[in-house]
């Protein structure tokens, strides 16, 4: 195999790649089962590395993971990211505090370090976890409402989560939080082709 050029058309089970990466599959399978064949064109040539995920059944392209799994994944990743960020900030603060406590005993220094970590870590983690939970719930609601799943849902969900997060502060803070959430998620999905 190695350096030889392989003609794809002559190989068994190999197909044109454009049929694999058809983006209109989503629309054609919506609502009714009008499959060309039950199994997608699936090639067994190991030299071809597909750029997009392959599905055995065509209907699977319009499906996703269950809501509970998405909720736990989004919330957990948000919480753990916030915990790590806040913990790092707490470690920096504790190191600054240790300069003032150079003459203190070992126990006092350990307690000061732990206090500064446990003050900042859970604060960041809780806030990011709550934001992620708002995002997951609102994305699911918007997805049901629009009966569609694309990245525009995520932008709307981020705007909604930001406004909900700051809705008790003031109107200005609410608008800024929603705008910020929309900008962040919009920039994340800006270069995605499906928005």
């Amino acid at each position, binding site marked *: 195999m190695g350096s030889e050029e392989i003609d794809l058309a002559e190989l068994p089970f190999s197909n044109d790649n454009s049929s694999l990466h058809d983006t209109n599959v989503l629309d054609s399978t919506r609502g009714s089962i009008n499959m060309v064949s039950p199994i997608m064109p699936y090639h067994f040539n190991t030299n071809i590395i597909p750029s997009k995920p392959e599905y055995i059944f065509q209907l699977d392209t319009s499906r996703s*993971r269950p809501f509970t799994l998405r909720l736990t*994944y989004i*919330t*957990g990743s948000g919480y753990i990211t916030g915990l790590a960020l806040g913990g790092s900030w707490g470690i920096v603060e504790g190191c600054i505090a240790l300069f003032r406590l150079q003459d203190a005993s070992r126990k006092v220094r350990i307690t000061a370090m732990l206090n500064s970590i446990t003050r900042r870590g859970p604060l960041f983690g809780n806030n990011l*976890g709550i934001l992620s*939970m708002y995002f997951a719930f609102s994305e699911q609601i918007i997805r049901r409402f629009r009966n569609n799943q694309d990245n525009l849902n995520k932008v709307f969900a981020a705007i909604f989560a930001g406004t909900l997060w700051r809705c008790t502060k003031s109107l200005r803070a609410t608008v800024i939080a929603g705008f910020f959430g929309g900008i962040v998620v919009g920039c994340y999905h800006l270069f995605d082709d499906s928005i």
Partner: protein
Amino acid sequence: MDDIESLYREPCPWRIVDDAGGGFAIGAIGGGIFSFYKGIRFSSPGFKSRAWSGVQALKARGPVYGGNFAVWGGLFSTMDCCLMSLRGKEDPWNSVVAGATASGMLALRTGMVGMIGAAIGGAIILGLIESIPIAMTRYQATQQREMTFQQAPDPSILGKQDVSTLHRH
């Protein structure tokens, strides 16, 4: 909008994220409802005052409950994964030991006695959670065995008996 029905959990390192997120969601929703009720209950009379007090209590305490649950879930899942890779098998004892270790680690700053007490409490809770499905399966299995005893005998045995009696004549 059909979801793929997945009965299987994530593979082990990523399970920690999922368990922490599940714990956070449960704790934040349940604790949020609880603290909202508490804020309404212990407030000055008047609808506006009560509602505002409830919202403030929810905002102050809900994320804290969520964070505590998330820390517990994440530690438990970490311990479970560690035990699974160390012992090379997955059984209820893993969960019991992981629950005891997670509870003990959370009570690390209270001293030795507090740690042991928390570990025993965690082990009892996880033992109850793990033993209820086992008891259910065992109960269903006994019922199944009683059902199989009432079945008719295998017809192939009857045929063989007939052949043997014919041969004897």
